């Protein structure tokens, strides 16, 4: 009987055949466009013309993004809005998903399955539908949110119509839609902690908040780290509520990068400038994710 390796080698031709469709598609539609984005970021190029019509301008696009003009101001505001939106979203999603996850995993009463299904179902709903429904919930006069706030004596909020509250209102909508997904990941992480760990901790007299801080959270560390990174990447993609409800306003307060880059690079056809924005976003993302991992490692060693 031939060795295992020899039997595998006979199928070598299949390696290429099986990989070609997926790796080929990813190469053409992901890797090549990344390269093109970087290349275009160094050029002046109208999106409506062939790539060959691009004119090299070195780092001119990036200089414009850093300069004092309206292009730079709008871009930096969008970059700031995006990271504020992501930061607030993570700050809300992380503790909420942990609380829901612990509740669903630890509480032995009937109906926690219903909560989990309800939570996850919001993640399955098209974001454009969520945006539309929430715009009506936020409606200052006919919306139920201000009515409910009125019952408990809180004054009316302007929600989407004021630059002070619009971005935070979009964060709230995002948290509602996404918290269930992260809850499921927390529950999955919790089920992987063996019961023996809890039994040992109980023998040592650890319970309540002490148990959470000393046992559960450290063992959930990888789950929580993963959740932060995914929540960040999801938050950067926010588009529908901005496109459908605020168009980046009022006064640029909800202008976020996915919306802004599309507006500049495709609607205004400034493909080179838009690509420079995309490259800056990618670099910022790499820096932030590296920082998250570095902070995590530091905390682990301490």
């Amino acid at each position, binding site marked *: 009987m031939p060795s295992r390796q020899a039997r595998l080698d006979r199928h070598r031709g299949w390696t290429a055949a099986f990989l070609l469709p997926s790796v080929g598609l990813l190469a053409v539609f992901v890797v090549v466009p990344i390269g093109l984005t970087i290349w275009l970021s160094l050029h002046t190029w109208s999106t409506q013309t062939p790539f060959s019509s691009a004119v090299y301008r070195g780092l001119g696009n990036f200089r414009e993004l850093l300069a004092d003009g309206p292009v730079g101001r709008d871009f930096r505001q969008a970059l700031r809005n995006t990271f504020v939106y992501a930061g607030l979203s993570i700050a809300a999603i992380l503790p909420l998903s942990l609380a829901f996850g612990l509740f669903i995993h630890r509480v032995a009463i009937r*109906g926690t399955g219903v909560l989990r299904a309800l939570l996850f179902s919001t993640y399955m709903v*098209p974001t*454009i539908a969520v945006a539309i*429904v929430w715009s009506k919930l936020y409606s200052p006069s006919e919306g139920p949110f201000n009515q409910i706030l009125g019952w408990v004596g809180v004054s009316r909020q302007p929600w989407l119509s004021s630059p002070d509250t619009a971005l935070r209102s979009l964060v709230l909508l995002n948290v509602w839609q996404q918290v269930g997904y992260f809850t499921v*990941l927390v529950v999955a992480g919790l089920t992987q902690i063996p019961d023996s760990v809890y039994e040992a901790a109980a023998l040592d007299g650890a319970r309540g908040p002490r148990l959470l801080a000393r046992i559960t959270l450290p063992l959930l560390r990888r*789950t929580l780290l993963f959740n932060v990174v995914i929540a960040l990447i999801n938050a950067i993609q926010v588009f*529908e509520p901005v496109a459908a409800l605020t168009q980046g306003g009022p006064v640029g307060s909800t202008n976020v990068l996915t919306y802004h880059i599309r507006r500049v690079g495709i609607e205004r056809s400034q*493909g080179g400038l838009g690509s420079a924005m995309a490259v800056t*976003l990618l670099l910022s993302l790499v820096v932030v994710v590296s920082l998250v991992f570095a902070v995590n490692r530091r905390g682990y060693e301490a």
Partner: protein
Amino acid sequence: MQRVGLATVLVVACVAVAFPLVWMMLGSLKTPAESLHTPPVWWPAHPSAEAYRTVARVVSVGRSFRNSAIIAGVTTLGILVTSLMAGYVFAKYRFRGRNALFAAVVATMFLPPIVTLIPLYRMIGWLGVDGRLIGVILPNLANAFGIFLMRQFIKGVPDELIDAARLDGASELRIVFRVVAPTVMPAIAALTLFAFVYHWNSYLWPLTVLQGNTDQYPIVLSLGRLLSYTRSAQNTNQVMAGAALAVLPPLVLFVVLQRFFVRTLARTGLTG
């Protein structure tokens, strides 16, 4: 006593989470007068399906659903086929550069789509498929998450099963789709759910490719148009009915396939 407290927390949490969707359903059954009333009317006095009839016409619901079904269905089918084949190779074949290639594939999973949107838009135009459904579908037929998921599950398929099939003279193609695939059905169900829902809901890419060719619009884009159509008219009940229609297919699929997703998420190993 503690049980009552926990049950109360559970009920409050369920109500809070469900509230926006319940409001949507109630809103879709109101009359225009009720939906404009201040303070808001919570319960429609005379529930009416009028808004659904109007909105089905305004968004050409049949055509929009067909476009959505084609986009989500064909894309999902493509992802299943390409992911099974690549997942099988990454799980069961040994070749030089395997781990590096797999790492590169997984890395693409974390890329925000806006980073490549501008050149992709131009490439689709260059291929001559802009404004058409095929242009929406083509770049998404392979998916890094799908490959990752299939590899994780196929790794658990016993080598003996595959070797036995080979001794029986089965081709590798037959092994992937007739021997391996049936043993990873939960993963296939979960990937079907994720891929179909993701591409049913996807907005930015179809909007960019279809560029105002409303005949080809999926339901989510028609819904986006509905908002601007009704902005002046303030027909909240119609907007809610439109949202309810768009929400229905992914929710139904979720209810049918939901028992697979938790197990699958836990098995991906991404979660600790």
